[in-house]
């Protein structure tokens, strides 16, 4: 018994929520569980934003100190993944993710997922991600990335 953690994605104008998603692949459409080959991103363009949240269920007292970063997988030339965590949902688009920064590539020194604590089953704020490319990004598959999510629980 402990908190059960999974990812949830929101899509569309009205934030249609899909819990228990199976991947957060980037692509050229606003949908969850994408097959990359079906929604390729043209070099020089951006993916649709990913609006995901961590969902905690089952029984726990408190979740805190949540950190999210890219731990493995090199970027190709001109490739970047942008990241921001914020309260408000916005319909995913291909425009550059507002106020986002490069996703950390090592463990952040402090929590970068809000809220700072979760003390009842529910969701984190929105973790917004976007794959960005330039005209110099080579054609073909990008490298597989490994992400790490770390949190404290009691």
């Amino acid at each position, binding site marked *: 018994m402990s908190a059960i953690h999974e990812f949830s994605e929101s899509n569309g104008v009205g934030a249609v929520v899909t819990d228990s998603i199976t991947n957060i692949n980037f692509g050229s459409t606003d949908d969850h569980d994408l097959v990359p080959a079906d929604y390729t991103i043209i070099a020089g363009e951006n993916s649709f934003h990913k609006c995901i949240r961590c969902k905690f269920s089952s029984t*726990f007292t408190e979740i805190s100190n949540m950190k999210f970063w890219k731990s493995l997988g090199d970027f190709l030339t001109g490739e970047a993944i942008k990241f921001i965590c914020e309260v408000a949902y916005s319909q995913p688009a291909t425009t550059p993710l507002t106020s986002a920064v490069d996703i950390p590539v090592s463990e952040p020194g402090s929590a970068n997922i809000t809220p700072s604590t979760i003390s009842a089953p529910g969701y984190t704020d929105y973790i917004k991600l976007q794959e960005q490319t330039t005209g110099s990004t080579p054609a073909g598959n990008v490298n597989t990335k490994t*992400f790490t999510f770390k949190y404290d629980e009691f």
Partner: protein
Amino acid sequence: MKFNLIWKAIFNDGTELNQFNDKEQNIENLFRKVLERQDQLKEFCLFNIITGKKYRVDLSLGIISIGNKEIEKDQLKDKPNLRLIYFRRIEKEFQLDNKEIDLRLGGRIKSISYFLGYQYTENNINHKSLIQIYSDDQMVVY
């Protein structure tokens, strides 16, 4: 998910509270119940159910020990009010492509470690004594 290290709280009146009421770890007492009685807490122990190793923090004396060996002991003059530190740190990994590690994207658990210790405030300065214990009994002393 079953835990390798489970806790037991011992209070000043001799009563005890175990994290689980059964070996299968189905019936759990939330840590919140310990926090609600923190001012009455005497000892807090972690047991590694795989290796049998016991970790203990004695809040009345300011001692952290493994088995019978004391590894941390503050020279506390006035016995300030010691506050328990306990939490688990969970690290999960997942891949960003169509080869997800789990069917449901929760990720693969890379590690679980357990933090145990105490803190107190003296002359407006917070002091901590803390150890981090991994499931295989590897340990870091802070």
